[in-house]
């Protein structure tokens, strides 16, 4: 409400919601009454300025969690699962505790965030260490140390997850996304550079998605198990056969295949599928793809802007999706992506967020990790707050920027997760509702 000045010189100023959130892009005297030049740990939900909720222990202690999610199996039973080290764990309400389901990967996943996707009542997952040079602002991708590329699965029924697959020629791949020894030379000949491959081949990727009943890997690593040679294809996507998530060999099923984007200047930093289309994010661009209806070339691809630099996702883990709503951080702004368009949402907090991203504590010896973004609808059942949450690690705390899709405002929170003495990240995966 504007200032009310009476003829006798008395005045009053009232401040009420709805609040427009952080505004650092106008002088403090010129911002709206509903905005704030600075705030911390207040929630702007429902037009009240409320101290943010207390952080309390929710689930039992655990190792270094690399991903938390849930899925429902064919019996309608839900499984809350998490990855740590080399293993997959399941939440057990009796205790409560985390029960190990055994090895989920061919090697220790170290600090590398797990990408997962539920498909046909089974959770599929991959994890990869791959340092992505941060364009700007700040940050990069991947975690500590190399891992062996793989894709694994667990259907909620078996005693253990599965990451190995026996191929048609009896060769065994250390990934359920694998290529048999007998097919490896042929497949290798079609890859960029035409490497001579011995096989069998184990595929893994930084990103995992699904469209058209086909699992899709983006930013792919390939391990030639015959020679222990690792091949990096940061601009390649590889999809499974239609409805056959264990079949990735195009010489055996023509609806499986891959596509290297040789005509782009950057590398893949994210993957999102929305409705009948998918979006492959690159540092400086977005490629839209859609099912073609053809079994041999199942997808069509369209680089949405052909310029060398454009709106892309510069922080691989800033990308987030909830239903028809996506969000990601580009060089110039934070964007919301819907089925119809991409809209900047950084608003009047953009510069403050970009400053935090640029100033977060850089790498070794103190490596706080990387920023994570997520869109979540609730804090718990019955408490709705549909927000894009961007967590940025600092030495003494984790800054959490909260964008409300309903109110279109940004709030700034600090989570007490800093640790001046640590050399490892204090968060290793985004929050999730499980």
């Amino acid at each position, binding site marked *: 409400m504007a200032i009310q*000045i009476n003829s006798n010189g008395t005045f009053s100023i009232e401040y009420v919601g709805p609040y427009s959130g952080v505004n650092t892009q106008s002088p403090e005297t010129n911002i709206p009454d509903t905005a704030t030049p600075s705030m911390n740990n207040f929630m702007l939900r429902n037009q009240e300025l409320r101290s943010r909720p207390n952080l309390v222990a929710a689930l039992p202690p655990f190792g270094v969690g690399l991903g938390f999610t849930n899925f429902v199996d064919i019996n309608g039973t839900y499984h809350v699962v998490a990855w740590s080290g080399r293993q997959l764990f399941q939440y057990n309400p009796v205790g409560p505790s985390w029960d190990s389901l055994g090895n989920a990967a061919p090697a220790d996943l170290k600090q590398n965030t797990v990408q997962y996707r539920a498909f046909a009542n089974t959770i599929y997952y991959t994890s990869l260490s791959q340092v992505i040079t941060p364009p700007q602002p700040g940050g990069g991708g991947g975690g500590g140390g190399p891992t062996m590329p793989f894709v694994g699965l667990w259907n909620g029924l078996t005693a253990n997850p599965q990451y190995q697959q026996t191929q048609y020629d009896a060769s065994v791949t250390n990934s359920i996304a694998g290529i048999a020894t007998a097919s490896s030379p042929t497949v290798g000949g079609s890859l960029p550079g035409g490497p001579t491959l011995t096989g069998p081949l184990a595929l893994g990727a930084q990103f995992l998605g699904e469209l058209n009943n086909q699992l899709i890997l983006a930013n792919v690593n390939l391990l030639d198990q015959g020679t222990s040679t690792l091949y990096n294809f940061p601009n390649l996507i590889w999809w499974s056969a239609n409805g056959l998530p264990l079949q990735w060999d195009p010489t055996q099923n023509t609806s499986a295949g891959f596509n290297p984007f040789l005509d782009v200047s950057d590398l893949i930093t994210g993957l999102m599928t929305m409705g009948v289309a998918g979006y492959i994010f690159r540092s400086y661009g977005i490629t839209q793809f859609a099912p073609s209806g053809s079994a041999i070339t199942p997808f069509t691809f369209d680089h949405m802007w052909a310029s060398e630099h454009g709106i892309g996702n510069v922080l691989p883990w800033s990308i987030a999706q909830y239903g028809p709503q996506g969000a990601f951080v580009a060089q110039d702004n934070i964007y919301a992506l819907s089925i119809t368009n991409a809209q900047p949402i950084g608003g009047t907090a953009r510069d403050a967020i970009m400053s935090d991203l640029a100033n977060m504590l850089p790498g070794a010896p103190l490596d706080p990790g990387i920023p994570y973004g997520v869109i979540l609808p609730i804090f718990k059942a019955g408490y709705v707050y549909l927000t894009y949450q961007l967590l940025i690690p600092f030495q003494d705390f984790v800054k959490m920027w909260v964008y409300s899709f309903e109110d279109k405002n940004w709030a700034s929170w600090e989570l007490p997760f800093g640790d001046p003495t640590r050399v490892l990240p204090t968060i290793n995966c985004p929050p*999730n509702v499980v």
Partner: protein
Amino acid sequence: MPVSNGGIPRPLNLWVVQSTSTVNPGIFTFDVTNFNDPFSSSFYAWKVEDIIAGRSATIRRVILSYRDLGVATITVLLSGTNDAQAVVTDSQEVMIGTVAASQVIVTQLVGITLTGSNLQLSISRAAGDGPVSITKARMEGTVETTVY
């Protein structure tokens, strides 16, 4: 039909995040029944008001309407600048809310005064100093209105 290996009948429907900080390790959630974080302080600053540019104004009181979520201690701060271009401030610690945490909206008058230009109201709470939920803030005062 194969039986499930463990699991639960419905999802937990709970926001979780893990901290591996040695200072504060654990898998956390936001307790939406408790807005008094013991580890984190809070503050909120409203816009800077120049009332009438070039004229000093005097804030004579601040009125806060808030939802009673329980007993909390907040600091109400007025800041501004004077004719010497120095920063001037006045603050007052205020206890709000009741043990009963009635959830109703109540109003608190804060007798705080500051004369200056570019006046700004802000509130803060220290970590663990109680839950705060401001529904309206109001500043009242006087300003010179002589024409020139």
